[in-house]
């Protein structure tokens, strides 16, 4: 068998033969054929038509093809399209999010758009080894046919043809499609169409008036959860298996069913309305594990999270905590959810994920910057009977391993009357991510990490969901 690869330079339909000239230029192209025989069955004719269509698509879009044919024959046995070493994701639209996937992408990668008139190089707002994200596709990239590639230390990727448009951004943008399997772990970032106010009225969410700020927050959240010192989600490149989707549908009506956040009447917190999330996302074809509901309120701009409710009727991975049998559920019945405002900062998204990704019934990860515990099963916090009681040496036994307590309570100088305590830190030089991270040394909360027990518990929980 012989293989010919190149651009489809010309296609000619003559009588019952399709002639395809394939190669780097028309003069150096190889002439290959698809012959529609009168003796062909309908099935054979159908797939010859498919091969012809594929050649036509390739010719019209500038995609190279790979054609297999006999060593001494011009008759085409198969046609392939694609096969680049990077993959632009979705439509390329000015002033919209845009991502490109690949493998081994270096931290200094740039996205290069090339057209007959200009070359535009853009620095991504998020770089992971398997994808890069542009918060916005700049208008300096010409409308129409471009080609795009990634460049960085040790990487010069293939050029991939893309059509750039200035049409309105798409409502649903898959940023990274996740492991190619049924139900990859799905993180959805969405603009809440409406807000349920303290007064009980539904008002349009101002986030729709500030698309640029929304995009900025999307990129901020993703950098927060995927690139800070705490590597919970990106350890072993786990995020390579996760799906990330943005939903900004400004055609969604400001009605109760679309009011995905609500003002807390007693504070400036904005809470996600978790019971609405599954039904809101269903028409878009998305089933989420975690939802970041981004809103534009300036009066209720404190972030709030609700834990995931795992689906107890579906499979799970068993574990023990202090001798009690529990389960890391593989699927959620209600996704974990976070409400964040457009002015979100610090390590708030990662901290809030710490809550949202845990489970109502089989392990909550709670705040450490307040005293006391509720009556639920909390993974990362316990309380002594009296504040004068010593902090126990061992915090908990998780799956047969003893985890120590933090005797210094993050060294944050909490009142001596507090009874709560938590597991020993991974990094004793900085407060726990679930504590008051604003008090991190040097004022840099981005270095804060979880404690050892919570990290182990959460890693197992995420692994169970990723491998479902």
């Amino acid at each position, binding site marked *: 068998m012989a293989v010919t690869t190149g651009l489809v330079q010309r296609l000619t339909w003559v009588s019952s033969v399709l002639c395809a000239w394939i190669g780097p230029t028309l003069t150096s192209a190889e002439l290959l054929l*698809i012959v529609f025989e009168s003796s062909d*069955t*309908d*099935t*054979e004719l*159908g*797939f*010859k*038509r*498919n*091969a012809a*269509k*594929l050649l036509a*698509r*390739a010719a019209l*879009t500038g*995609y190279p093809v790979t054609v297999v044919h006999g060593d001494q024959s011009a008759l*085409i*046995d*198969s*046609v*392939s*399209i*694609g*096969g680049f*070493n*990077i*993959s*632009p*994701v*979705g*439509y*390329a639209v000015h002033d919209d999010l845009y991502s490109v*996937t*690949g*493998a081994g992408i270096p931290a200094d990668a740039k996205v290069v758009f090339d057209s007959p008139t200009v070359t535009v190089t853009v620095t991504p707002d998020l770089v992971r080894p*398997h*994808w890069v994200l542009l918060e916005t596709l700049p208008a300096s990239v010409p409308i129409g046919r471009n080609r795009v590639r990634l460049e960085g230390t040790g990487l010069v990727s293939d050029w991939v*043809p*893309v059509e750039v448009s200035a049409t309105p951004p*798409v*409502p*649903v*943008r*898959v940023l*990274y*499609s*996740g*492991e*190619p*399997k*049924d*139900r*990859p772990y799905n993180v959805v970032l969405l603009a809440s169409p409406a807000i349920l106010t303290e007064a009980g009225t539904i008002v349009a969410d101002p986030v729709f008036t500030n698309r640029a700020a929304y995009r900025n927050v999307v990129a901020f959240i993703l950098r927060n959860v995927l690139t800070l010192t705490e590597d919970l989600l990106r350890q072993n490149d786990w995020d*390579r298996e996760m*799906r990330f989707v943005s939903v900004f549908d400004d055609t969604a009506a400001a009605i109760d069913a679309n009011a995905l956040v609500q003002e807390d009447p007693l504070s400036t917190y904005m809470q996600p309305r978790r019971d609405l999330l599954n039904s809101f996302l269903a*028409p*878009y*074809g*998305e089933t989420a594990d975690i939802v970041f509901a981004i809103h534009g309120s300036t009066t209720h701009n404190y972030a709030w999270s609700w834990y995931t409710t795992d689906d107890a009727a579906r499979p799970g991975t068993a574990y023990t905590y202090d001798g009690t049998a529990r389960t890391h559920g593989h699927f959620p019945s209600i996704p974990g959810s976070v409400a964040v405002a457009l002015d979100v900062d610090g390590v708030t998204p990662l901290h809030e994920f710490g809550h949202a990704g845990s489970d109502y019934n089989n392990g909550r990860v709670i705040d450490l910057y307040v005293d006391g515990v509720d009556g639920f099963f909390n993974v990362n916090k316990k309380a002594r009977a009296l504040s004068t009681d010593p902090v126990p040496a061992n915090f908990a036994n998780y799956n047969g391993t003893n985890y120590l307590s933090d005797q210094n309570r993050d060294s944050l100088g909490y009142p001596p009357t507090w009874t709560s305590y938590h597991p020993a830190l991974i990094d004793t030089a900085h407060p726990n991510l679930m504590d008051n991270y604003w008090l991190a040394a040097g004022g840099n909360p981005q270095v804060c990490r979880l404690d050892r027990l919570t990290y182990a518990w959460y890693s197992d929980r995420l692994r169970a969901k990723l491998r479902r």
Partner: protein
Amino acid sequence: MAETAGLVQRLTVIPGASLACAWIGPTPTNTELLFVQRDNTDPAGQGAFKNSMVDVLMTAVASRREVVAIHGANDAKITSLRIDPA
């Protein structure tokens, strides 16, 4: 049934086998190989339906749009295809 969502990273049409192979996944190196195959015994309507799925796969390659391929839990044969709103 299982659903595999992703970009069509590569598509091969093999007329002699009435077969279209689609590599679907988030990156070129992380894909699932699925296929559409027409059988000689397929009624005309079924054949046309399968051809139209191949058509969509072709369009998805160049448009960089995600597809959702539905197939058996332990079977790579695509039985339905979906394109969700974008």
